[in-house]
């Protein structure tokens, strides 16, 4: 087993899905969280000057999506064959793009709520409905069927981060199939343990 070190800030953000993958797989890693003050000193260590970065026996992997794909493959959470891995990969890109349309920098509260509602209506809800449709077609709890894969954990993590941030956290009301997915993910032993023990983080 390689030595893993994950570097990020003390937030969930784009690293939480990686931490959840380690938790699901029951694999040890160093969960480094730099403060804003510590960051400038460590920035030159990171290949593209950004985080998260995963160090694997000292070799660096940058870009959260590349890290997720690597961990899913290593931990056999990528569907078992390259076509299933590609489907999960596709959904990773789709969700990343949809959720990245949310702007957290809008300061006017009223405008923020309006923008958020519009992004959800046009970009996010349609993708979530489609994800649910495929879950139902495959007859299980997860995207690929009965067996969980990394993308379900990414979905869980994304909803987890957003639910605390949005004023009324009502995303799942419209998505009963995803609500079940979220409940099932929470119960998985490795993940349940992590959710109980993880450091509190603002977002």
């Amino acid at each position, binding site marked *: 087993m390689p030595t893993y070190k994950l570097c990020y800030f003390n937030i969930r953000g784009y690293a939480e899905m990686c931490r959840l993958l380690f938790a699901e797989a029951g694999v040890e890693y160093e969960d480094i969280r730099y403060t804003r003050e510590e960051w400038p000193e460590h920035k030159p260590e990171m*290949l593209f000057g950004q985080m998260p970065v995963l160090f*694997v026996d000292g070799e660096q*992997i940058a870009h959260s*999506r590349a890290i997720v794909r*690597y961990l899913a493959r290593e931990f056999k959470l990528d569907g078992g064959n390259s076509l299933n891995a590609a489907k999960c990969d*596709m959904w990773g*890109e*789709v969700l990343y793009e949809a959720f990245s349309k949310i702007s957290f920098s809008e300061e006017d509260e009223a405008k923020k709520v309006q923008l958020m509602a519009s992004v959800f209506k046009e970009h996010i809800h349609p993708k979530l409905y489609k994800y649910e449709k495929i879950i139902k077609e495959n007859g299980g709890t997860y995207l690929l069927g009965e067996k969980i894969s990394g993308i379900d954990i990414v979905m869980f993590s994304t909803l987890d981060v957003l639910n605390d941030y949005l004023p009324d956290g009502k995303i799942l009301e419209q998505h009963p199939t995803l609500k079940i997915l979220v409940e099932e993910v929470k119960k998985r032993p490795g993940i349940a343990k992590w959710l109980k023990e993880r450091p509190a983080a603002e977002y």
Partner: protein
Amino acid sequence: MPTYKLVYFDGRGRAELPRMLFAEAGVKYEDFRVKENWASEKPKTPFGKLPVLTVDGGEPLAESGAIVRYLAREFDLDGGSSIHAAQADMIHTAVIDLSNDFPYFEEDKAKLAERVKTLEEKKANLVFEKIEERLKASGSQFLVARKLTYADIAVASFVDAFKDFDDSFIKKFPCLDALQQRIASRPNIKKWFDNRPKTMF
């Protein structure tokens, strides 16, 4: 060997790297180009976008990144191990993300020059500097695993696409310039470059 069909518009764009992978691997595929019939093709795609790849007539796979990574894995162009695949992934992602800012269809010449300059100064120079350093330090002909991977082909594909905007950009990075020339002159890639349809984008 499965039957592959790659569907895109009649251009290079986000389909060109998948096409280069098919070419390098010497694998046959249907290079389907949507011209007038987008309205009827669009509903067949999972998310209303192109490219999509169908394998043995199955459900279409969308997202050019997912398609590239799938083909690379199938054609043994991803370095072979998960760590090498991850390194290729990271380089490909960094390079291809830059193409999201390509000022396609910008008609105002001054604006176009400005946008190209901003892209280079704010993003592309940094990414390429880092990859150049890495290649130089490795002393290898290739970016990952000391053998050809889709990361090398992605750099060549980027240079091929970006030369429409700034054909001297890559000269700032001599090792990467040498790499992309080596890729472009590989027999199968050269054959593809020489014979592919000439398109606007």
